[in-house]
Every structure is written in C-alpha cells, then in structure tokens.
C-alpha cells in the first residue's frame, strides 16, 4: 500500500502562499484556523528560503501517542486523521507536534480550546454523510482520486504530495537535473558524502 507524504522543495518555494489559500478554499476551515503555513527563514537576506508546512502525517506520530481520547489515528496509507466527535480540546497534540499542525478554534472565554483541526491530506474524516464530513473536516479529495489541493495548485511545484516513493522519485530526478552535488539542499558542506543523486549522474 502506498504511504502518503508531503514534501516541500525549499529550492523552489517562492513564498506565494498559494498553498495556504488553496487549503483554506478547499476545506473551508474555521475562522482563525490555517492548516497550512509558509515559513520563511532569513527573510530579506541573500540566504532567504521558504518552506510550506502543515501536518506531515508522521509514521510514528507523537499526536496519536499522547492524545487522551484517541481522537487521532492513522490510516493504512499513512494519513493521520482526527475524529472531531472525540476531541475534548486538551491541547496535548499541540504540545507534542513537531510542526505546529494541530490548531484550536478559540471562540470561548479564557482561550478555552474548541475541537482540534488540522490538515487531513484532503482526506476528510470519520462522518456519517458526505455533507457532515465536509462540514467537519473539509474536502475528501483522496476519495475522489485527487491529491491535496495545496500541492495540486502549487505554482512552482515546490510542494509535492502523494505516494512517498513517487514523491521521492520526482525529487531525486530534480536533484539530478540540477546537476550539482547539493541539489537537494544547497550549501550543504557534506554534499559529497550525502548526495547519492550526484553519484547517480556521474555514473550515467
């Protein structure tokens, strides 16, 4: 079975925030919740680089491990989903997540958390009907045979989504095409040792 992954090629990301907008639009998430974000490091400096981040659908997901209600679960294809009927808004997933993916609507007094929301890889979530699913979790594009809208709409194809193997193949191909030792992450001082792709080009 395929394992679904996101991958953002930071060499291509131009910080247009199209993925953020596409996600908002596809999933109609609650006010104040933004499932995807774009982080820019060293903004305005020559070394400026941007990367789009959302739930990374971890293999050994910390959020699943710490959730006291088993709201979070992983599908066979690696997508980490959440069941809003179970969430109590304790915030543990937020404490544990390396990527700041879980978010909570704050409509109550004293910042009391509502039900957690996070990226679903455009795969919806547990619900009785399609309408309920859309209302709670947003689009289920995976069920329609489509990939997450953020990746589909990425203008530079920096953000890739899909079967981990295919994503890796595309990225490897790019590194080869770029033609230099550290085509994955430029400026990598260990490029010689790290770059398998470079070796591949040298050996034809």
């Amino acid at each position, binding site marked *: 079975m395929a394992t679904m992954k996101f991958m953002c090629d930071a060499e291509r990301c131009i910080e247009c925030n199209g993925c953020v907008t596409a996600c908002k639009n596809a999933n109609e998430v609650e006010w104040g919740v933004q499932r995807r974000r774009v*982080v820019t*490091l060293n903004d305005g400096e020559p070394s400026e680089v941007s990367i789009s981040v959302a739930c990374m659908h971890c293999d050994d997901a910390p959020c699943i491990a710490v959730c006291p209600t088993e709201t979070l679960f992983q599908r066979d294809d690696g997508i980490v989903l959440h069941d809003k009927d179970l969430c109590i808004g304790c915030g*543990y997933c937020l404490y544990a997540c*390396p990527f700041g993916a879980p978010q909570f609507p704050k409509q109550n007094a*004293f910042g009391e958390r509502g039900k957690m929301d996070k990226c679903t890889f455009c795969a919806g979530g547990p619900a009785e009907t399609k309408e309920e699913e859309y209302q709670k979790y947003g689009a289920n594009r995976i069920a329609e045979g489509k990939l997450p809208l953020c990746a589909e709409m990425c203008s530079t194809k920096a953000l890739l989504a899909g079967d981990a193997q295919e994503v890796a193949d595309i990225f490897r191909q790019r590194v080869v095409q770029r033609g230099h*030792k*550290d085509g994955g992450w430029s400026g990598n001082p*260990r490029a010689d040792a790290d770059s398998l792709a470079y070796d591949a080009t040298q050996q034809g």
Partner: protein
Amino acid sequence: MSKSTPWRALWQLPLLVLALVASLGLAQFALAQADPDREAATAVPALDADAWRQIKSGETGPNYRDSRFDSNYNLINASGETWRQLRERWVSPFGVIVVVGMIVVIAVFYLVVGRKKLDEPLTGRKLLRWSLVVRSLHWTVATLFILLALTGLNLAYGKAVFRPLFGDGFWAAMMSGTKLIHNYLGPLFGVLLVILLLRLLAHNIPRKHDLAWFAKGGGLVGKEHPDAGFANAGEKLWYWLLATAGIAVIASGLVMDFPNYGQVRDTMQWANIIHAVGAFGLTAVALGHIYIGTLGTEGSFEGMASGYVDATWAKEHHNLWYEEVKDQAVPEEQLAESRPTSEGDAPAPRSG
C-alpha cells in the same frame, strides 16, 4: 488616439525580435557554460546542516516569518518529542506505580496491622476540634480533590480502560464531561485549598517534637504514642505537601487551563509534567490520608464529621493539645441538648 500610432511603432518590431534572438543565444551560451561546481558556488546558500541545527534548537532569528496569523511556532518543535518521551515513558508509569502501589500498601497494612483502636474506653466528654467553617472547607476541598483526581486519572489512563469497555458514543461524552469538570472545578479547588491552608497554618508550624514523632514512625515503632500537638507530624507533613506540591499543581494547572495569556508550548509542556507528577503523588498520599481518617484510626472520622472528638482520642493521639484544652471538654449529653432540632447523631456546633 490617432490610428497612426501603432504603425509608427512598427519599425521597432524587427529590433525587438533581434534583441530576443540575441539574448536567447546568450542564454544558450550560458547554459553551455553551466558547470556544476560553478552553479553550486553561486547557488543560494539556503539550508545547510547548521541552519537545520538552529531550527531544531528553537531559535528563530530576527528574519523568521510565519504566514500564520498570531503564530508563535518555530518551524520544528523539537521539544514536543522530549515532552512526549517524558510523559509516555516516565510520568504515566510513575502515576500507575504510586497510585496502585499505595492502594496495595494500604490494603496490606490494613490486613496485617489492622485498625488503630483506642487503648482506653471513651469518656463521653467531647472536645471541639474542627469548626464548622473548617469542616465545610475540608469537605468541599475533599470532594473537589476526589473529582479532580478521578477525572485526571481518566484523562491519563481512561483510553486504555473505558473506550473498549463502553464504546465510542458513551466514551466521547464521558471524556468531554471529564475535561469540563477538570478544567472548571480546578480553579475553584485552587482558591478553596489556599483558603483552607491559610486557615490551618497556625496549627501546622513544625515543632521540635515532630522529629521524635517521625523517629517513632508516628507510633508504629514501639507501643507509646509519640508527642503531638493539635496536628501531629504526619498531618503537618500532609499540610506542607499540599502547601508546596499542591500549590505547584494548582499553578501549573492554571497555566494549562488558561492558554490565552500568550504562554508558549514549551511552558505548557513543563506545566503538564509538573502537574501530572505532583497530582499523581498527591493522589497517592491522599489515599493514605483518607485511610487514616476513616478506616485506619478509631475516632478520627468523627472529628471531621461532627467537629468534636472524644477526650480519650485527644489524649492518645494529640496529648499536647489535650493538655491545653482538656478543661473545655463538654459532656456528650450537653452537646445533644444544645443541638438544634436536627435528628442526626452528629452534633453541629455553629461556632466558626
């Protein structure tokens, strides 16, 4: 606009085409010159190993940007994994060990040593020990403590027990209720515990004879009752545990309960660890307190229920206090008479 304008500009067209072709040729020349090492040298030094180390350390630098509104997240939150490991590997097992361990210890103690009976018969003369205000505070705090302990244990371990037992529908409602009770009654417990602690402070100042009390294991070593004032050293220990660990649990609970004051994840992670360790520990000690106050010692429960204790109990368990107040003993019958019309057997003095 005259129609002649576009025509007048037409002569520029071949020039434009020429320029384009020339630049295309230049680009092809540049591509032909493409040398991996040269490109690497001019490529943007974006993310090297040091940059990743900096990101993982949580530093963001002045030119860090996040497109999410009001975001206080780093790119990678490495502390989350530390918190997870602490919680899953240490804190959760610790909780089970201390709470279940304490239940086992108490059960064994009860079976082996048994209930602590009074050595001498009851005198029927009663001494006022706990005023109505203190008793009300005590039972309110006690009720809240038990509710918070049960809901807290459910938050920590419930998923292993109740979800398979009850099924999703009931369990979802149970967990929502659990969180509401825990988060809403917590602050109330905090306020009342502080009031109770302040009310009882004078009785719980450590004294020299407390050391002797501990040396004799509170009377377990040898047959003598060690000296004790109004509160014995064991009670004082419980008091100071609540005054230290209890306050820490309350404070860390408030940090997590009100996430609207700009505290970041790392703060809440540590608050969670402190809260859990302190609360599991206090729950275990509270089990001991409950045992001693009910099953464990003859005559103790009466004190917190009615406010009065028998003179014999006072003499045996709190000899120094007994010496101070023995003149104020009231015969049982008098208490029964002064009691307002209530039918219960526990007199309810109104003195605060």
